[in-house]
């Protein structure tokens, strides 16, 4: 009998933060599709909107959301579609169908990164200990995202709400290190 592959997370069994005001939870296996195309081409924008429900955001460092799908701005011609676990195949298929014949790139990068959700009254203070971004609410709020460095690890940070809640997308190979760093950084708030 063939072995059945089971999805495992690099953070399985990792002890979390004890601080109620800065909680870390892993959201593994979220579908992530890297999408590239020309935002000046209305055929591209319309096709993505048709497939996903939201057009790719043109404004830098912003996120477009439609239902459970989010499209995060990564660059002037690059986005990351974040979709629920297990939905990446369907989403990729919908994009390929809608964008057929166009000069685009659609790559399923689901397994490259995992997602750590950090939330609570002190979540911002924890991030500020290791991230050079200006995270003050006047500069970075819900619906915004940014690629930067957190404790020397490359991360993609997406603010979800004013709690504040952040989704931190990090390469799986850095995730244990970053998880332990976050748990340690949150200690002073417990």
């Amino acid at each position, binding site marked *: 009998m063939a072995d059945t592959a089971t999805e495992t997370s690099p953070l399985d069994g990792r002890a979390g933060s004890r601080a109620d005001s800065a909680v870390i939870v892993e959201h593994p296996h979220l579908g992530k599709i890297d999408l590239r195309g020309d935002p000046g081409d209305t055929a591209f924008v319309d096709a993505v909107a048709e497939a996903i429900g939201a057009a790719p955001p043109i404004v*830098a460092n912003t996120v477009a959301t439609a239902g459970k799908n989010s499209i995060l701005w990564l660059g002037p011609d690059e986005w990351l579609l974040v979709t629920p676990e297990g939905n990446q195949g369907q989403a990729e298929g919908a994009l390929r169908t809608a964008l057929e014949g166009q000069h685009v790139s659609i790559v399923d990068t689901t397994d490259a990164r995992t997602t750590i959700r950090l939330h609570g009254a002190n979540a911002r203070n924890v991030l500020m200990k290791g991230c*050079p971004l*200006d995270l003050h609410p006047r500069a970075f709020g819900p619906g915004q995202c940014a*690629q*930067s*460095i957190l404790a020397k690890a490359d991360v993609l940070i997406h603010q979800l709400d004013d709690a504040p809640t952040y989704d931190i997308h990090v390469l799986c190979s850095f995730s244990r290190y970053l998880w332990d760093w976050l748990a340690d950084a949150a200690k002073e708030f417990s």
Partner: protein
Amino acid sequence: MFLIDCPYCGPRQQTEFHCHGEAHIARPKDPDAISDAEWADYLFNRSNTMGVFYERWVHNHGCRRWFNVARDTVSDRILAVYRVGEKRPKVTK
């Protein structure tokens, strides 16, 4: 903290970027037609400007895009930031 105004992402800390040397060096159109010395000059020799210097930077921990910067090598102040393909702006110290 030293901020660089990425033309795509906006102002970010210097540690997110890398500098990759002098900008606007054109590759010789016909490498076979030039001498070894001319080829070596293209490959290795760079001006070592004191004052306004045009150089290439990449936002490698952010949007991973390349762009150009005019920097005063004496004061280390960044005088202008512009995209690849744009003409170099005239700047004063």
